[in-house]
Structure formats: C-alpha cells, structure tokens
C-alpha cells in the first residue's frame, strides 16, 4: 500500500470515527505538479486527498482562523516536519490547542513522500531534536554566505534592488502560519509605523519588520519565498534570523509546545559582545 492510500485510509478512519471534524490535506492542483490545500469533512471525500513529493506547502496556517478550534473538536492536518514545528510554535504562542491537532506527518526525501509515525506534536519530538542537531539548511547557508561576503554597500544595493520589486501584496504574510495577527502592524494607522506605499523605502520597512517579527519563529517552510510573486529571496533573510537565534540563544524554532518565544525570554548570560 502506498503512502497516499495509507493516509487516505487514516483520514477516512479519523473522520468516520468522529475523532476529527476536518482533515486539511492536499489535493490535485491546476497542473500535474501542483497541489492545492483541500478541506475534507467526510470519509467518502478522502479519495480527493493526494500525497506525494509535490505536497510541499505548510498547511498549519489553516489551523489558526478564528472559530475553527473553538468548539473543542479536533482537526487533522497533513504536515511535514516544518509544519509540525509551526504547530509547536502556534501552541507555545497560545494560538492553537495542540490537543486538538491530529498530525498526519510525512516527509519528502529523494523525490518521495514517506510516512512519519506519530499523531501528536509531542510524538515528533525526537525527530525535531535530531533536526536541531543537524543544524540549519546548508544550502541556504551557502546562498546567504554569498551575501555576507559582499561589502555592506553592495549588500544594501542588493536588497535595494530586491525590495524595489515588492508590490506589498502581502502574500508572504498571508501564507505564513506565523503571521496570524488580526491587525498587522502595517494595518495600524495610529500611528502609521510602516509606510503603506510600496516604494522602495516602504518596502524596506515592511520586509525588515516582517523578518524581525519572524526571528526565532520561522521554520523555513519556504512558503513566503514561493508565494512571492516578484521573487524576492525572502528565504535568505529569514534564514539569517533563524541562524542568529540558534547561534546566539541556542533557539531552534518550534522544538516543543513548551518552548518560550525567543524574544519573550532571556538569560542573564546572553551574549552582548556588541554592547559598548
């Protein structure tokens, strides 16, 4: 039995037994290599579920909308390890109750989707632990290193060009499971901290603020980077933040539901080499 069939059966069982009221998974997309989020509410619909190496989106953001979990019922969701980490963060930040989230975990490796055993976010703790010890993506690091090698002036110019493309469609924000604020800082107008206009200065402000708000929270699912219609390499800026959180504070985002948000806590011996 392939993984897709296995997970369809599990989803069907969860639904028919009443263990969950909804399964959030992947379905066929508009082209053969696209997958789209689908919402399955009954066992006979589970044939719509697809699970293969194209299922890359982090679906945990669909757990956050107001009212979804307020009835106390559970929801099952297809998640890769990055999504499981997102659920941990959402739980740590009191956005979801982890007991109401049933995880249909899988991973993609070598062009294949493979099942991950477990149901609750805590079941995946060893996996996340091992991810932490492996460290952040070396591919991203290599790409970021290219930028780090530049002079500050050149690096500024690089981001100047990248951010000048931004149209403030907020796809990065909307697709991000971590961007759940009911009213984003850019939508606050008393005072208006971030210019709403999408000129380069306003774009700089927006992208810096978003990266900062994701510091130590980003799980590198790559959703924003893929969603960006103007191809700004958001992965790099978010990766840099993750790296700082890991290097300076040994913080690997989404380790567990008990993890304190990195900027909402401190240690007395935090490094401070740069402070005069």
């Amino acid at each position, binding site marked *: 039995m392939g993984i897709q069939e296995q997970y369809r059966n599990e989803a069907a069982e969860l639904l028919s037994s009443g263990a969950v009221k909804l399964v959030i998974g992947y379905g066929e997309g508009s082209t053969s290599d696209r997958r789209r989020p689908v919402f399955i509410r009954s066992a006979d619909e589970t044939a719509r579920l697809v699970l293969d190496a194209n299922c890359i989106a982090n679906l945990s953001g669909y757990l956050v909308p107001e009212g979804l979990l307020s009835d106390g019922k559970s929801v099952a969701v297809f998640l890769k390890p990055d999504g499981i980490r997102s659920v941990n963060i959402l739980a740590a930040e009191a956005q979801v109750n982890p007991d109401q989230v049933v995880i249909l975990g899988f991973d993609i490796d070598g062009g294949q989707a493979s099942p991950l055993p477990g149901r609750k976010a805590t079941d995946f703790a060893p996996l996340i632990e091992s991810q932490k010890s492996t460290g952040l993506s070396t591919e991203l690091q290599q790409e*970021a290193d290219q*930028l*780090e090698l*530049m002079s*500050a*002036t*050149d*690096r*500024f*110019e*690089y*981001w*100047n060009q990248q951010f000048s493309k931004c149209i403030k469609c907020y796809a990065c924000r909307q697709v991000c499971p971590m961007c759940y604020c009911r009213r984003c*800082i850019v939508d606050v107008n008393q005072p208006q*901290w*971030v210019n709403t*206009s999408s*000129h*380069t*200065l306003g774009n*700089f*402000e927006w992208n*810096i*603020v978003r*990266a*900062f708000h994701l*510091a*130590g929270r980003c799980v590198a699912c790559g959703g924003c980077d893929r969603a960006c219609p103007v191809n700004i390499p958001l992965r*790099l*800026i978010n990766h*840099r*933040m993750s*790296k*700082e*959180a890991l290097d*300076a*504070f040994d913080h690997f985002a989404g380790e567990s539901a008990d993890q304190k948000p*990195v*900027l*909402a*806590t*401190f*240690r*007395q011996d*935090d*490094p*401070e080499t*740069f*402070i*005069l």
Partner: protein
Amino acid sequence: MSEPFEPKIVAFVCTYCTYAGADLAGTSRMKYASNVRIVRLPCTGRISPMFILKALQKGADGVLVSGCHPGDCHFAQGNYHARRRWTVFRALLSFTGIPEERIKFSWISAAEGAKFAELINGVTEEIRSLGPFEQYQELQKIIETQSTY
C-alpha cells in the same frame, strides 16, 4: 568649500540610567559633541526596532541605543529583553546592508556621566568618518521626487 559634514545622530535612551548619565555629564560641565538628539524613553525594553528604522528614514546618519547595565533595570528585566532584541535586529540590519557601525548599543548608568560624554564623542567621530548615510537617505529622496514611471 562646502560645510564640513556634521553627522546627525539619534540616541534612544532609558530615562533611569543613560538619561540620568547624560544629565550628570551636563551638570558636571563635561563637553561632548552636539550631534546627538536624545529621545528619552521609560526603558530600553520600550525601544522598538521601528524607532531605529524611522530615525534612519528621517535622515539620521547614526543611531545610539542605550540603557541600564544588566541587573540595574528599573523594571527588573527590560534591558535583558532589549538585549536579545538588539542582537537579532543588529544581525538583520547588517544582513540587509545597513552598516553595523552606524547603530551603536551601550549600557550607561546614572553615575557614568564621563562615559556618556566619551561615548558620544567617540560615536560622533566614527560616524563622521563614515560620512552621511546616503544610501538610505536616497530612498527617501526618491519618494519625494516624481514617480519614475
């Protein structure tokens, strides 16, 4: 001859330590560079990174952020939180090409009037040697001129 470049520096300071330190420097008649505009805040924990960005946007060539030494915070923990925030924010600014030399962080207690004066002089000299932060200020200028389309 054009005027020699005088950097504009904005200092966000906590009222209990650094501001008191600045006060001490003043009442002790210590001399320090007049390039700094001080913005007083209740605590370093209140200093949002947005403040730093806005200062740069409004034409600052350098920014100084300063508060109580670790352990001295009037609110017990504000400066510890601020320190973490600065660590991350500093990395972020650096990665986006905003030179770290332009953003300074320091601890100055109410008793350190001399340190304050010294720091201001040092920072002013350093920023003066870096020159105006034209790259960022250029972005503001573009806004004020006609749309390029």
